[in-house]
């Protein structure tokens, strides 16, 4: 960070922000590489945060689980959180979200960049939201691609939400889109043949 010292966010702030956006435990190593801070500094910031998010201090706890660090709701708040979960109306999905789900449904498992490629726009933020909502999941990695990016697919929750018993309930892509257009999509995906929706 090339800012003047006054502008540089504190280590604990950076870590707090990262932990808010991760539903999985984050290791000290991952925090260090995202923040650019040495591990010792990360450890010391985590120590400060553990006091800020301690039982009795906050409704949010900083917990050390599975070799990483995770924010979670305090057990004493669980009844209120459960009531909120029951009462909250799920946010509707955007047009972009429907498209990303359709990509994964018909061409999944596929990588983030393949989704963006098919749609013609960067879709990372939409993918992130769908992962958070449990409608997409990472199901493996594409070992042939540089960096071995994650492969994404629709989840059972998605199928349940659409009222479909299985992928087979969706009509084949060929009945929705002209063959020549599908050829272009496949070209972008560099896939030889379309996968029938049944094969999960």
């Amino acid at each position, binding site marked *: 960070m090339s800012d003047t010292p006054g502008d540089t966010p504190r280590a604990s702030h950076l870590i707090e922000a990262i932990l808010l956006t991760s539903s999985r435990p984050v290791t000290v190593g991952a925090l260090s590489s995202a923040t650019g801070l040495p591990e010792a500094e990360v450890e010391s910031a985590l120590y400060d945060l553990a006091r800020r998010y301690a039982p009795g201090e906050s409704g949010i706890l900083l917990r050390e689980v599975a070799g990483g660090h995770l924010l979670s709701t305090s057990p004493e708040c669980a009844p209120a959180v459960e009531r909120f*979960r029951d009462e909250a109306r*799920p946010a509707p999905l955007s047009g972009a979200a429907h*498209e990303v789900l*359709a990509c994964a449904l018909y061409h999944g498992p596929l990588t983030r960049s393949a989704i963006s490629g098919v749609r013609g726009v960067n879709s990372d933020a939409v993918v992130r939201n769908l992962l958070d*909502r449990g409608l997409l999941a990472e199901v493996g990695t594409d070992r042939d691609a540089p960096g071995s990016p994650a492969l994404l697919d629709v989840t059972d929750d998605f199928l349940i939400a659409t*009222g479909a018993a299985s992928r087979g309930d969706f009509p084949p*892509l060929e009945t929705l889109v002209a063959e020549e*257009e599908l050829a272009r*999509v496949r070209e972008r995906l560099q896939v030889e043949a379309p996968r029938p929706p049944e094969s999960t």
Partner: protein
Amino acid sequence: MTLDPAGRALSDFTVELDVYSGPYEWLLALILKEELEIFEVPLRELVGLYLSARDPGAPNTLERDTDFAGSAAALVLLKSRTLSPLAGEDEDEEGEGLSPQQLAERLTRYLMVRRGAQALRERFAANAGHYPSSHLLPPRPGRLRIDFERVLEAARRAFSRQAEPPVDHLGPITVTLQELASIIRTALVRGPVPYEELIRDMDRLRSAVTFAAALSLAHEGHLRLRQTEPLGPLTLEPLR
């Protein structure tokens, strides 16, 4: 003519031309409302004014250039439309009989929206980088409903987009500046080229982008845009 380095994209750019003097965005609005004949606006002078007022060190130079090239391209588009009106194109009938009052009202409305848009741009920028929590609880089974038909519709849309070149409007640009810049460079090898000749076989979108490409090349010093008289043709001349 002044340009506030930290100012809004193009709103502070004023022009002094024979046919018009005042803020550039009003000129644009006047032409869009067909109150000012596009042929009367000497494009070369306009570009010259813009370039001489341009501060390459300003923080929003790229934004400003993009806006200018975009609006200048829209002017060329209008010009080509005036030259060869498409059959069946329903031109704004009420545009003909607008009273000065009505026009002033419309212009005012447009200017306000333009300013509103600039204010929005700043708000979006100031609020970027706020990421929400990822610690979401899945809704109870059955609470979230995804419309089956909407998924199919989305599939149709996502997988058909490749075959849908949008050229009937100023939407997504399907040709690149680089591509057209190289066409211009090739044409200039043989000497000066009239702009009209360059775009003769091009559709509106390509001719508009060609103009933007010419502006960009002129700015880099590869060519000169020459217009000898206010109503005369525009010629591209090689410099190097």
